[in-house]
């Protein structure tokens, strides 16, 4: 039985260090007068229960899931990326995009207005739907979205440090399509049925190459632990070591997150948002963000595997948050590239996407595996 103090001590032992808020900050400094702001966390240090909550929040495993790279970072990335997507598309299309809602910041809060509108709209469950599942599955999506965070570390912040973090993350991410297929089944409508079939087919087309590309990097670095992998890339990032794997992984992400040109399961003119056709209101808001959440997760993985993860100049005041910042910036930049594809691509057909996945990309994936094996041999022989 853990005592209160032992629990508190356990949280404090393994807490996130951010000098900006856990150390004293010098505000005003002359030779005689020195003004400090006492650390914010120390305010609560003495108050029972509250100090436990604060300690829990800063406890690394909890912090990882809830703040970085978990839920909060995801939301911070999502709102601007949806706005950015609409803005950059509009820019390429010779127009402005969302603007008038807040002219000074270019309509940045437009996604929030849409969210508010969704929130207060009626939720319709149609007669044919499998009612309990129809409402449960959208909420269940948080499970496969947050589970991979457990094994994705950022610098020293991680929930579970495992030597199998990359395979585990990919395995957990691949739960998302199952939820989508289940959503399509629960909707019990023809278009939802066609849409979830498409989702299932797309899953087959990208999953193998995604795994092969990731594994080729694992072979190259000689470890499946994300922390090891990032350390290996301290000089040369993975994208230079094995560009083919990066390319394959990149395209697999497009397929996995149904971005253009592989936006096939939700194809609006063909199957009217496929699995999500019957959803209304805030539940639709939930299911529509699945693709963006998945994009965020896979971009995290891409940054870790190919872009040197959280490597970057250390910023002392941020402490443990400095790697978080670098990883977040890389991830966000990647997401911006992915959403840009909407501006100049249409969508492929399902059978074409399958063909691309199974022939061209599979070939590239095997080549990337070969490159990794070759580099690995050179590395072991000590020629590098």
């Amino acid at each position, binding site marked *: 039985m853990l005592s209160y103090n032992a629990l508190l001590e356990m949280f404090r032992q393994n807490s996130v260090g951010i000098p900006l808020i856990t150390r004293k900050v010098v505000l005003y400094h002359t030779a005689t007068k020195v003004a400090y702001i006492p650390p914010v966390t120390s305010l609560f240090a003495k108050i029972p229960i509250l100090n436990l909550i604060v300690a829990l929040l800063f406890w690394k495993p909890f912090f990882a899931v809830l703040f970085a790279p978990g839920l909060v970072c995801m939301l911070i990335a999502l709102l601007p990326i949806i706005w950015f997507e609409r803005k950059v598309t509009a820019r390429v299309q010779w127009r*402005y995009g969302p603007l008038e809602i807040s002219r000074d910041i270019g309509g940045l809060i437009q996604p929030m*207005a*849409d969210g*508010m*509108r969704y929130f*207060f709209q*009626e939720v*319709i469950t149609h007669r044919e739907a499998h009612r309990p599942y129809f409402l449960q599955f959208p909420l269940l999506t948080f499970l496969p979205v947050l589970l991979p965070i457990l094994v994705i570390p950022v610098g020293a912040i991680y929930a579970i440090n495992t030597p199998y973090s990359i395979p585990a993350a990919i395995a957990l991410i691949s739960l998302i399509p199952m939820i989508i297929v289940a959503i399509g089944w629960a909707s019990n409508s023809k278009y939802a049925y066609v849409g979830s079939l498409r989702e299932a087919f797309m899953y087959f087309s990208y999953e193998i190459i995604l795994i092969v590309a990731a594994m080729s990097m694992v072979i190259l670095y000689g470890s499946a632990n994300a922390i090891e992998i990032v350390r290996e890339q301290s000089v040369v990032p993975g994208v230079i070591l094995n560009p083919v794997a990066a390319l394959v992984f990149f395209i697999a992400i497009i397929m996995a997150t149904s971005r253009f040109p592989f936006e096939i399961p939700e194809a609006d003119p063909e199957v009217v948002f496929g699995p999500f056709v*019957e959803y*209304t209101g805030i539940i639709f808001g939930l299911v529509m963000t699945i693709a963006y959440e998945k994009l965020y997760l896979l971009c995290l993985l891409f940054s870790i595997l190919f872009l040197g993860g959280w490597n970057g100049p250390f910023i002392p005041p941020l402490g443990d948050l400095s790697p978080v910042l670098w990883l977040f910036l890389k991830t966000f930049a990647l997401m911006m590239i992915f959403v840009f594809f909407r501006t100049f691509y249409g969508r492929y057909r399902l059978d074409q996407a399958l063909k691309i996945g199974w022939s061209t990309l599979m070939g590239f994936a095997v080549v990337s595996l070969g490159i990794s094996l070759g580099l690995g041999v050179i590395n072991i022989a000590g020629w590098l």
Partner: protein
Amino acid sequence: MRDVNAENIEFLSSGAIAPVKKWGAKWSLWAVHLVTSCCGVELAHAYASGYDAERWGTLNFGMMRQTNLIIVEGTITKKMARALRITWEQMPDPKFVILIGACGIEGGLFWNSYHITRPWKIVPVDYFVPGCPPTPEGLISAIRALQKKIEKGEARTTVKFRETDLAELLGTEAGKERKPPKPPLKIAEKPEIKVEPKEVEWELGKQLVGKLKERIPYAEVFTTDVNRIYIKTDAKFYKKVAKALECEGFDHVKSINVIDVLHENKFIVECSVSSYSIKEFMPVIVTFAAEIDRCNPRIPSLIDVWLSADYQEREMHDFFGVWFEGNPNMGQKFLIAPEVETPLRKDFKLEEPSYVLEENK
């Protein structure tokens, strides 16, 4: 009918978080993709680069379940009316309707058509935009007006019209009484439907007419103009003529037409054919016509000669009730709503135009 418009506004402006609700609804008017007619062109322009209605937070979206605005783009036909109502009912509350285009409001050009409805009697409408089609500016100003309505809770027409007192302007003393003149429409009681031969300078036509006369001696063949040949035949030879023309190289149907001659109690069924495969015949249109009884209008179908006749025959069946024997789809409504019967017959009367404003209006 309950006032859904008022209920929507009431829902949005009630409760402690009313400002948030109103703000969300105001800046996120997503229009459902329900193209109903040709005003869709200007709707597309309003959302495209030229005007970019997306600036105002409105977006044209595919599916009814995720939207809160219907922009009715013009005509709602009797067939479309149910689709409009279903779409509206499937949309989650609170929802709004903007109606653009004269066709949707009072019918516009089609005010007395047999196939259109008044959409504002089917769904509750928030704003009406005139024009045929309205300009994209008109649509955007309706969206702006709707946003203001959500915010303030009351609808307001964007423009004011000041009334002038005519009595003051013109004086009340009655001058000479002006009687409304005779309306211009002049429709003959006993119309004369005839097609007469016309001699024209057209070498190919003379050859063709000669050839056809030889092939179908039972029919009357003559030219009516350059590139136009007319064949008068009988219903029992109708298909024979068609086969003969097919042998000559006429490979597709240009038009199948029925003329209703009410006072003579007959239908004239005409079929115009032309050719794509023979270059000289490309501009030539050969029309062959047969008269049939108006009470039991039956004529052989031509779909086994020219497949391109199929939909036109079904259309004529809808319009006139002519039964094309051999077409498998007879007896089924194709183009028009089930409740309309043979609208193009001359005894199917439309509402007459009026030129003087009635007092009750």
